[in-house]
């Protein structure tokens, strides 16, 4: 019996109803370890080029890692890996909560699903036994109702499940997957892939004693250290109280809050949306993921007119900005309602908000035809229309619901008339709520990340700039990040940091560990990551070995995208980010070394940014058009991938 993992991958073919178990040796587990890297192995190996993401041929891989389920902070997560229906790229959508440890306790390290069920179904896994069961009676139901019906039917009130609502069933291209109705695999449309397979839920129940660890006492010791120290981490000092929503206060303070489809950097009364206001008004509870004391999740409740149900949690920063300021809205209760609806219907709050914000700008500019709007006054600030649009998107109701359900890229292609210039997406994925004009490394992640405009490709630039706390800079040193670099730089130092951080975050996504708990910025230091992995598995690993894991995932994802036809030219930002961010007319201070122009009106210089990406390609040892070199793939012990792209 191995330590940390079960040695079993569950395979389910929904077309034939065939269920099988695949076993791999220790070398395979040590090569891929889990999450995005394990998912990339299957996706590139087993899928043909050009598969329709919503066809039965698309694979849907749900993968925790060899560390998942160990009782330590940040080890609750899993990846959902598939070909994205939104971008047609590699998709690795990560989510926390409670499902992934339960899958490990139930006897499996990952699930690989293919085919399409003739009728709605769900997969039920209990202590190794697997069934495909009828889900006709819960198809069409919102996530919470379906979840409770399934639990009641199974007589398992503590079963954990990945589940979709009507958004996934209707194949909204940015539909997500929920667990506990508030933890999401949010980005890229994995919920639509579930819907395309007539798969309502994947339900698991296991025995926590079944998973073995090499040195349980060491894990507990490291866990205890975390519990004693995490509140000293600068981010956690307020993170516990306000969650990620606290970031909105920063964005507001220096006018970098995405507002009105990223046209502006601030909005009057933005503080109404802040984590502090939430804590002072509608917050009822702070929650956490499996074995994690950080407690960053929010639970909110309101009275009339919105009557927000606390069962569906509460909004985080991305949601507050996407469905709030980015739509010109500063009503916290309305945004909390939108968050509840997205969790009921399984919609990604980022893509939903950015798509609605884009539609609002098109409407105000007269680019959306009246007959496409179904009589709605789709203006910035119209919170009732924003909520109505969430309903219509989830159900693909009317012309406007259908138009917006396909995301910003397709919508802008249909509208044309120059709307492409303010269509805020990269490779089709709506950009997250961090303006790249003030964080160029995040911008490179948007432009070059395998899944498109995601904000968790690298640690953000401001954590290593001239203002960052010493502790962040110190903790990044084992990665070779030895100097502070300005947030708006696109010089070689920034590119090098990007390469290192990209692979570091890629190892996070392969070990499915939480960025809010591990270095370079959070509580666990680099050494703790290695110590924890060794305590879980009994192996003697190193940061070097783990960085190779990260590089492996980065390059397999790049190879997948290359095979699908993505090239260097596709690594670009929306045009809006090459013009200056409109800040408030703010008073300015002066101090030695400050760049007043960049601080007042930040923008990305297209030529410099392109040169930075070219340099990054050279540092990553990719060919000019984006193909990983043969030697690179062999060096990463994935030589089998060569024949996929050569």
């Amino acid at each position, binding site marked *: 019996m191995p330590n940390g993992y079960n040695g079993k991958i569950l395979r389910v073919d929904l077309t034939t109803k065939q269920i099988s178990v695949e076993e791999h040796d220790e070398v395979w587990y040590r090569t891929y370890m889990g999450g995005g890297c394990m998912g990339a192995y299957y996706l590139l190996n087993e899928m043909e080029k050009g598969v329709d993401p919503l066809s039965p041929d698309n694979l849907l891989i749900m993968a925790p890692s060899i560390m998942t389920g160990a009782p330590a902070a940040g080890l609750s997560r899993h990846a959902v890996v598939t070909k994205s229906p939104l971008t047609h790229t590699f998709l690795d959508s990560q989510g926390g909560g409670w499902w992934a440890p339960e899958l490990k306790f139930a006897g499996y390290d990952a699930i690989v699903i293919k085919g399409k069920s003739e009728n709605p179904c769900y997969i039920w896994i209990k202590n190794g036994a697997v069934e495909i069961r009828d889900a006709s009676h819960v198809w069409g139901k919102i996530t919470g109702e379906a979840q409770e019906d399934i639990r009641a039917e199974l007589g398992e009130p503590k079963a954990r499940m990945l589940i979709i609502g009507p958004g996934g069933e209707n194949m909204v291209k940015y539909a997500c997957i929920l667990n506990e109705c508030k933890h999401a695999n949010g980005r890229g449309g994995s919920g639509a892939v579930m819907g395309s397979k007539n798969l309502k839920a994947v339900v698991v129940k296991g025995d926590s004693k079944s998973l073995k660890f090499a040195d349980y006492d060491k894990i507990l010791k490291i866990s205890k250290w975390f519990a004693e120290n995490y509140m*000293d981490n*600068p*981010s956690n*000092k*307020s*993170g516990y*109280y*306000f969650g*990620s929503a*606290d*970031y*909105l*206060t*920063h*964005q507001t*303070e*220096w*006018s970098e809050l995405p507002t009105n489809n990223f046209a502006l950097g601030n909005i009057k009364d933005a*503080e109404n949306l*802040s*984590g*502090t206001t939430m*804590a*002072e008004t509608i917050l009822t509870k702070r929650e956490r993921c499996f074995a994690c004391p950080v407690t960053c999740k929010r639970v909110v409740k309101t009275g009339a007119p919105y009557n927000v149900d606390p069962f569906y949690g509460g909004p*985080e*920063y*991305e949601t507050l*900005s996407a469905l709030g300021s980015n739509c010109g809205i500063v009503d916290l209760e309305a945004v909390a309602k939108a968050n509840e609806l997205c969790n009921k219907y399984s919609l990604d709050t980022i893509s939903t908000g950015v798509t609605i914000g884009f539609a609002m700008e098109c409407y105000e500019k007269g680019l959306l035809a009246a007959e496409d709007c179904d009589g709605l006054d789709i203006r910035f600030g119209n919170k009732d229309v924003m909520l109505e649009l969430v309903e219509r998107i989830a159900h693909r109701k009317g012309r406007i619901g259908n138009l917006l359900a396909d995301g910003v890229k397709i919508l802008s292609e249909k509208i044309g008339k120059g709307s492409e210039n303010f269509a805020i997406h990269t490779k089709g994925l709506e950009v997250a*709520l*961090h303006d790249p004009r003030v964080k160029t490394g995040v911008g490179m992640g948007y432009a070059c990340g395998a899944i498109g405009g995601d*904000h*968790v490709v690298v*640690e*953000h630039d*401001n*954590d290593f700039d*001239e*203002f*960052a*706390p*010493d*502790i*962040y800079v110190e903790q990044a040193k084992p990665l070779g990040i030895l100097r502070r670099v300005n947030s708006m730089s696109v010089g070689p130092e920034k590119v090098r940091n990007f390469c290192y951080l990209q692979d570091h975050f890629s190892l996070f996504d392969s070990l499915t560990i939480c*960025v*809010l708990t591990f270095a370079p*910025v959070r509580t666990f230091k680099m050494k703790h990551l290695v110590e924890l992995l060794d305590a879980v598995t009994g192996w003697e690993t190193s940061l070097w070995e783990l960085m190779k894991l990260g590089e492996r995932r980065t390059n397999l994802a790049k190879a997948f995208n290359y095979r699908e036809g993505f090239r260097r030219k596709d690594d670009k930002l929306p045009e809006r980010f090459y013009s200056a961010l409109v800040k*408030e007319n*703010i*008073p*300015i*201070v002066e*101090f030695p070394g*400050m760049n007043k122009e960049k*601080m007042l009106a930040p923008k990305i210089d297209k030529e410099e940014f392109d040169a930075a990406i070219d340099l990054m390609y050279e540092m990553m040892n990719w060919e000019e058009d984006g193909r990983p070199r043969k030697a690179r793939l062999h060096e990463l012990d994935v030589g089998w991938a060569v024949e996929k792209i050569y």
Partner: protein
Amino acid sequence: MIEVMLHLRSFLRYKLGKSEITMSLEDGNTVEDAVRKFSNENGPEIANYIFDKKTGKPTALFVVNKCQVPINYALKENDELTILPPIAGG
């Protein structure tokens, strides 16, 4: 003497129950002088929020008149100062 407005956001607003206070400082006082004085006057919980309790170094971010500034920035009459935690979004 100069007077500076300290805006209380996030944890500080939550714990102290108000949005701003006025501080009287010596001419030439820096942001660090101001925040050390403020934390000394408001107890260890506030001090631990702004400074690392082991090293004593600042872990917060400082904003003057809507611009992020280094901690040695010399404050002027009627400057508006905000203290923020270094949290990233997600």
